[in-house]
């Protein structure tokens, strides 16, 4: 039976670098996409992504398995992103209720078959709609769909109330559905 994330993290804190490699392989993609889609610039995203893992490494001895490892990991990521947004003069909550119209992605007609073109256009619209979501809603959506966190864990990671997390997720889903024409 494979070791849980929490066991791997404790093993790493005890000096087992192989445990960290297993943890990293398991979570690197989701965390990277969470960070990347929370921001605009890829370079900044890579910097923040590396910084999050460095904080995991430095905090290994303070880690206590009171919550899921992913909750701890994404809490670190959330805090790092908040620092970044604050440095940029942005706030998570202030943009929470911002109701921007979702941008329409420009479809490239090209010479592809109509179904493929339609699927690509749908993905482009979804990507653009995700990028256009308010920061807090986008973060909740990414934590839910990339990090695999439940409402309670999202509330813990973002330091908000469960109701607020649930509401933000509902708003985000509705907007994205509207963007891709699924409503």
């Amino acid at each position, binding site marked *: 039976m494979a070791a849980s994330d929490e066991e791997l993290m404790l093993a790493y804190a005890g000096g087992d670098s192989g445990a960290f490699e297993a943890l990293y392989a398991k979570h*690197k*993609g989701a965390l990277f996409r969470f960070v990347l889609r929370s921001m605009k610039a890829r370079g900044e995203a890579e910097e923040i992504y590396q910084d999050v893992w*460095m904080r995991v490494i430095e905090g290994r001895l303070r880690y206590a398995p009171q919550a899921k490892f992913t909750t701890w990991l994404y809490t670190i990521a959330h805090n790092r992103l908040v620092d970044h947004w604050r440095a940029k003069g942005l706030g998570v909550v202030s943009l929470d209720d911002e109701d921007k119209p979702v941008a329409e992605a420009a479809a490239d007609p090209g010479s592809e078959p109509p179904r493929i073109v339609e699927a690509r256009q749908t*993905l482009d619209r979804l990507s653009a709609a995700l990028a256009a979501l308010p920061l807090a809603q986008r973060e909740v959506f990414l934590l839910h769909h990339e990090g695999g966190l439940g409402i309670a864990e999202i509330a813990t990671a973002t330091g908000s109330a469960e109701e607020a997390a649930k509401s933000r997720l509902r708003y985000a*889903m509705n907007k994205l559905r509207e963007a891709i024409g*699924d409503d």
Partner: protein
Amino acid sequence: MTDSDDKLLRRYRGLSREEPPRALDGAILAAARRAVAKPSWSRRWAAPVSIAAVLVLAFGVTLEIQREEPGIEYREPARSEPATVPAIPAAPPMESPTGEKKEEPRQATKQAPMESRTVAAPRPMKEPVAAAKVRESASAVKDEPFATEARPAPEAFTPSPQSPPAAASPAPMDMMRDANVAPLNARAMAAPRAKAEMSESMQAPARAPAASGASAAPSEPQRELERIAKLREDNRDEEADKALAEFKQKYPGFRIPDAMLARVRPR
């Protein structure tokens, strides 16, 4: 989760699945390995070995310094003797300190009164008490054969700014006492080692006239030796031997100059 949520999720999964660059993976994994890697032997022992090396070096240097300058800590009291001993022949001794607050001068002046009371008394220099004092001091100043001559002469007197008000109008004796104390104070002000040379140089002017004064009035041991030499010259060897034995008994630490030794030793 509703059907529309599932559909949205499937669409979302259809977005490109970005992964971190390999270089970033490598950097993070390397940092993780470094963080839990056990320090090497050299790194673990570097600090204790360095401390031990410094301690050994300091101990060695201390030993070396002591070997090169033995008894450096005893030299200071020995040098302060001339300020008190010299009172024997001509100059009066110092009786009281000049109000110095430093420890060293106090120690020096603590010894001074007893000696000065003894030597300052207007008794002939041949008195046994004065001789006993000379004997005591001679052991301390054996590397200065005629240390008694190194007494500052009254001309060397410079009024000390720290002198008590009572010394404002000093009698001749007081002035001479101050003249003795002044070099002592100067020595006390000097640090034991670093300023030893400065102290030497400060004594020099005071000693020079004193030496000339001493040549004018030979000390008791000198006169004694002269008498023995005279006995030798008169071929009264038996008396000379006896006198020399008495002299050695009387001044056990006195170092007879080579020239004088040649004249007084048994043939």
